[in-house]
């Protein structure tokens, strides 16, 4: 039996790597993938705790997170495609239309 603590630490490490990916990478697609990684990290923690407390709800939450992730990917990628069409680039450093 693996202590749940190990899973939580792993989840944290993965989450931080994902966050760094969001902050460091300039490729919008990779930024997206990093977000997916962060979601996975969270999912892992959910499942671990579900196992710990024998609560099915934790697993169901993961299920819902997956759906949300799927929806997010669909919309997000569509956005990236649309942006690429107008800007011919997916470098987030070249997109600053929101500049005040």
């Amino acid at each position: 039996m693996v202590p749940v603590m190990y899973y939580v630490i792993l989840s944290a490490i993965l989450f931080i790597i994902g966050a760094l990916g969001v902050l460091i990478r300039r490729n919008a697609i990779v930024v997206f993938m990093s977000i997916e990684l962060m979601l996975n990290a969270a999912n892992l923690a959910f499942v671990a705790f579900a196992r710990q407390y024998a609560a099915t709800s934790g697993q169901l939450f993961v299920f819902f997170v997956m759906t949300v992730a799927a929806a997010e990917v669909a919309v997000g990628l569509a956005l990236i495609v649309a942006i690429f069409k107008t800007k011919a680039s997916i470098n987030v450093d070249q997109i600053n239309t929101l500049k005040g």
Partner: protein
Amino acid sequence: MLLSEATNAGGNFSLVPLVVFFPLIGLLLNIIFGGRLGEKAIGWLASLASGLAFGVAVLLGISLIGSHGAGVTVPFLDWITIGSLHLQWAFRVDTLSVTMMLVVGGVGTLIHIYAIGYMHEDVRHNGDPGRYRRFFVFFNLFIAAMMVLVSADNYLMLFVGWEGVGLCSYLLIGFWYDKGKDGIGNAIAGKKAFITNRIGDFGFLVASFLMFKFFQPLAEGGVFSFDFDSVAAIAPKVASPVILAITLFMLLGVAGKSAQLPLFVWLPDAMAGPTPVSALIHAATMVTAGVYLVARSFAIYSLVPAAQNWVAIVGGVTALFAATIAVAQFDIKKVLAYSTISQLGFMVAAVGMGAFVAGMFHLVTHAFFKALLFLSAGSVIQGMEHGHHAVEHDPLLRRKMKQNERLGSTHHFDPQDMRNMGGLRHRMKTTYWVYLAGALALAGIVPWAGFWSKDEILAEALHLNPAVYWLLTIAAFFTAFYMGRQVIMVFFGEPRSEPAAQAHENPPIMTVPLVILALLSTFGGFLNLPFIHTFTHWIEYTIHPAAEAAEAGAEAAAHAGPWYMWGGLNLIVAGLSTLLALIAIALAWMIYTRRVEALKSLPAARRPDDPLRSMLGPVFTGMEHKWWVDELYEFLIIKPYVAISRFLAEVIDWKFWHDFFHDTIIAGGYRGLAWIFANPIDLGVIDGIANGLAEGVRGLAAQARRIQTGFVRNYALSVFVGVVLIISYLVFQLR
């Protein structure tokens, strides 16, 4: 037998609403179908409606005889009921009201029939045949309103009829509303009649308010209904100053409706209406409503001798005053109009003195002979118009007329001016004879109707109020004089104008009613012969309490009086008045035949149009101008009223209140205040603060804006920094 008679009588009494409804149905039929009916049908329909009303009145009269004069009240419908006020549409059937119904219905029907012929010509002379139907609608409306007036059981329903007849009078005076002086003269005459009547109505209204205020608390059950019986019953319990006030205010109403001083001015102008109107409304029926009202109110008038005095004096003075004016009029209808005012003065004086029967008697006979006079005057006028018409269409005669034109520059021929007439007795024989009958009746020559009734008034006056007796006697003298003058000017001598020479008699539809009226004028006096006193007994069924009080002396005298009392007839009075009348007629004959002959020698320019003018000088001018009463009223009332209302409307209300106060003071002041707030205060102080604040914020914002790089990663980083910081805080916190 008795029972069946009673029920039969009761059944007849309940017919009384029909006296109102028959004319109403007639006018409605004429309004709805009149457009499709011919002229004759319209006229006969209207006459039939009026005739049926007369028939009902006759039935009622017979029933009254059957019930020995006991009157009844026939309730019809509730009218106004609020708290202690309970007004009904209820009809009064007693000898007084039925007398009036008979007069209104009878004379009214005759005049309707006459009008079928008269209006046929009239609407053509005036060039608007479309008005024929309207005339008969108004005429029927008048009969209906007059019937409401005389059959009412309470003061307010009477008032409905009272104003209703006023309305018809207004409409019919203004019947030729596009004729008269400046095209508007007739309309103005109508308005004058209505408004003058309204002044009288004001008196009537105030009298009814007083009645309600003081009678209602004493009424049975606290509910007051204005009906004649309860007023008569309560009146003795009310303080006499109140009764005096009520009667005097009512007198104002009487003066308005019956054209007494000071409100008589409308009646002469009312002659602008077609002649049948003058006959029916302004001679026979409507104007006698005031007399009827006083007779109706005998119970309250008998309580206050002071009021009776006032009424009698008003009547007496009016009688004399109007008689003087009648002497100097040239319009054939104006003479009759002033004569009517004068005769109404006789009646008012009579009922004022308490001689209700005499007053009512004179009312009835006057209705006959004055209607007759007016209608035959109408016949004369129409004869003249025929003549004028003939002249217009004959160039030869036309030239002749121009040469003979006595009155010089009158471009418009006036068929009513007696100066244009003369010698008509040959050309219009029937009219001449009936006119003569009417004139003799009016002048009070035995045995024509006027003699009996006028004499009765004079006899009563001598007994009750000698001052009024003398006024009336002198008035009677004038009456005979101006009637003599009129008959001579119209029918005797030579024709003074070409139309008069060409005039011709009217068709039978006009002359037959004239003949009937002439017979009534001749024999109507026999209603109340000495010893028999049919009419007195008839009326006394209704006015008995007062009549007993007032005529006790006369009655006693009739049976056991001195030698000159002959069956209730005062021979001295009768003799004196007849003598005066004969003298007056003789005088008129002297002046208007002999004197005119004598004046013929003068050149036309200096020849006076009336021999009296040279004899009386300024007095004649005064009489001719109606003693300038119209001008006086114009100066005293109308001009100030117009000026005041202009002043109020234009200066006070508009210039001051609307323009100055509201627009300048309020709106302008507000605008000024707003300017002060807007410019120095708002721009200077408040804007300064606000703008300064805005500048500062803008500077700060310019700095802050630089944080917004637009790069997503920067934003994400700041979120991340926040996360780290929060967790750091948690770490330190949790330790």
